[in-house]
C-alpha cells in the first residue's frame, strides 16, 4: 500500500476511533448535567459538571453496596481460579498420571459448552446444595465457568518451563507440592497475572450468572445493579448515566494499566492452538 493509500485508510480509521470514544464521552457528559440541563439540551458540553449525580448513584441508589458485592465475589473467584488453575496446570504439563489426557481434553471441550447450555440444571444443583443467593454460590459458579480457560492457559504456559528446573527442585528435596509452591507459582507469575486479569474482567462483566445465582436485590452485583438502575431511573437519565460510568471506571482502569497483559491473554489462546 502506497503512501497515498495509507493516508486514505487513515480517514475511516479516525472516524472509527471517534465512534469508539464518543459514546463514553457522551455518557460522561450527560452524567455531569442536572436533570433540567439534560431535558433542555443533552448534547452541548457542560460548562460546570455536577458531581451530584455520581453521589446520588453511589449512595442513594446503592451502587456502593453493589460495588462491594462485585469486588468481594470477583476477588474470591479469581484467587480460587488461579490456585486451582495453576495446580492443575502444573500436573497436566509436567506430571504423568492416569486420566491426564482425558482431563485436558475435557477442559478443551468445556470451552465449547457455554453457560446457557448448563444453566437450568446448574441452578437446580446449586439450589439443592443451598448455594443459590449466597456469595460462595456465585463464587463457585464463576470458578466452574472460567476454570477450563484458566487451566488451558496455565497448562500451555507451564509446558514452556524446562523440565530440568522441576528435576533440580526435586533433587533439592522438595515434594511435588513444594515444587508447585516454590518453582511453578513464582515462574508462572506473568501468566497468572494475565489470566487473572482476564478472569477478573469476565467475572466483573458478567450479568447472566449473577442474575440467576444471586437474584435478591441486596445481593446485586454492579452489572445487575446497572440493569435495575435503568428501570428505576428511566426518568432521571443523568443519574442513570452516572451509574453506568461508575460501573465502567474499574474496567477502564484495568485496561489502562494492564493493556499488554490483557492482549497477551487473549492472543495466547489463538497462537497456542
Amino acid at each position, binding site marked *: 500500500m502506497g503512501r497515498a493509500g*495509507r493516508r486514505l*485508510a487513515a480517514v475511516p*480509521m479516525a472516524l472509527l476511533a471517534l465512534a469508539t470514544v464518543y*459514546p463514553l464521552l*457522551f455518557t460522561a457528559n450527560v452524567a455531569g448535567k442536572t436533570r433540567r440541563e439534560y431535558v433542555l439540551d*443533552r*448534547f452541548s458540553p457542560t460548562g460546570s459538571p455536577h458531581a451530584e449525580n455520581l453521589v446520588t448513584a453511589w449512595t442513594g441508589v446503592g451502587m456502593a453496596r453493589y460495588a462491594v458485592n462485585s469486588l468481594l465475589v470477583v476477588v474470591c473467584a479469581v484467587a480460587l481460579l488461579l490456585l*486451582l488453575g495453576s*495446580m*492443575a496446570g502444573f*500436573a*497436566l*504439563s509436567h*506430571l*504423568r*498420571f492416569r486420566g491426564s*489426557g482425558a*482431563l485436558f*481434553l*475435557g*477442559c*478443551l471441550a468445556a470451552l*465449547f*459448552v*457455554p*453457560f*446457557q447450555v*448448563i*444453566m*437450568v*440444571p446448574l441452578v437446580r444443583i446449586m439450589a439443592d446444595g443451598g448455594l443459590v443467593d449466597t456469595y460462595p454460590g456465585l463464587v463457585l*459458579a464463576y470458578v466452574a*465457568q472460567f476454570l*477450563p*480457560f484458566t*487451566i488451558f492457559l496455565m497448562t*500451555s504456559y507451564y509446558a514452556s518451563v524446562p*523440565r530440568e528446573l522441576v528435576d533440580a527442585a526435586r*533433587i533439592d528435596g*522438595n515434594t*511435588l507440592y513444594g515444587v508447585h509452591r516454590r518453582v511453578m507459582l513464582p515462574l508462572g507469575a506473568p501468566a497468572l497475572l494475565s489470566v487473572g486479569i482476564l478472569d477478573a*474482567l*469476565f467475572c466483573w*462483566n458478567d450479568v*447472566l450468572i449473577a442474575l440467576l445465582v444471586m437474584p435478591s436485590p441486596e445481593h446485586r452485583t454492579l*452489572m445487575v445493579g446497572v*440493569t435495575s438502575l*435503568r428501570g428505576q431511573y428511566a426518568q432521571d437519565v443523568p443519574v*442513570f448515566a452516572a451509574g*453506568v460510568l461508575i*460501573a465502567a471506571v474499574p*474496567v*477502564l482502569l484495568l*485496561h489502562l494499566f494492564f493493556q499488554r497483559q490483557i*492482549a497477551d491473554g*487473549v492472543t495466547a*489462546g*489463538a*497462537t*497456542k492452538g
Partner: protein
Amino acid sequence: MPRAGASAPSPPGAAVPSGAERGAPRTGRGSGPAGRAARRVAGGARGERLAPYVLVAPAVLVLVALRLWPLVLGVNFSFTGDGARDGTAVGLDNYRELWRDPLFRSALRNTGTLVLLLPVAVAIPGLLATFIHLRVPGHRFYRGVYFFPAVLSPVIAGAIFNLLLAYDGPLNRALEGAGLGAVDWLGDPDVALFTVVGVHVWATFGMALVVFLAGFAALDTSLLDAAKVDGASFPATLRHVIVPGLSRTIQFVFVTTMIGMLTSMFGLLYVMTGGGPEGATHLPEFYIWIQQGQMDRPALAAAASTVLFLLMLVVGLAQIGLLRRSGREH
C-alpha cells in the same frame, strides 16, 4: 472473546503437550535423580505418587459437579415435563413445543441472520489489523483506542447505546442534521437485530483485532516485502499474501466470533431490547433465560439449551475439522 462463557480460546493445539506425552519424573520407582530424590522425601513414595491426583482433585471436583453433571442432567431433564408433569418422562414433547413456538423459531431465524453477518464481523477487525500492520499514520494510537470497548461489560455497552440510540438521541440528531430521517433503532422490528449486532461488533471487535495483530506478528514478512517490491496493489497483496498467510488466524477468529454471537449477546439483549420488538431480537440464549427465569418452564428451557448445545457442537467440530485440514496443508 471473552465475556461470560464466550471467549473460548483455541482448540486442542499441537503446541500444547498434555501431561501424558510429556516425560515427567516417575516417582517412587525407576532410576535417575528424580527417583532418588523422591525416595529421600519425607512421607515416602506413596504420597508422591498420589500428588498429581491431589493437585488436580479440586479442579476435577468443581468441573464434574458444576459443568459435566449439569450437562448430563440437562439433556435428561429436557425429556421431562414442567409444572404438573414435573419429573415425568414426556418424550419429545418439549422439542415439539419448541418447534411450534413462534418465539423460538424467531430465535433460530435470528441465529441464521447472525451467521450471515459473521463475515462482516470478521472482516472489520481483519481489515483494521491490516491497516495497523501496514503502519497507517497513528497506528499505535488506534491500536489502544480500538481495544478499549472490548473490556466493557455488554451491560455497560448496552446502557450507553440506549442513550445514544434513543429516538431523540445523538445518532438520530446527526442523521437529521445530514438531511436524513430519524430511525427507530431499537423499536423497529426490521432494524433492531442489526442495531444490536452493530453494538455487539462495536463492543468486541477490539478482541478480534488483537488476535489478528498477533497473527500478523507471526506472518513471514519477506512475502509482504516481495509483494511490495513487485509493486503489487493493495487488493492483490491482501488476496494473495495476507489472507493465505493468516488462514489459521482467520479460522480462529471466525469460530470465536460465532461463539461470541451465540452466547454473549444476553447482556445486550437484556438491557437494550428485552428480545423485542415482537421477538425480532430473540436469540436462543435469551429464550432459555425467559423460559427459566420468567416463565418457570425449566424443562422447556433445558430443551432449548440442548438445541443450543447441538449448534455449538457443530461449530466446535467445524473448527477442529478446519484445523486438521490446515494442519495437513502446512
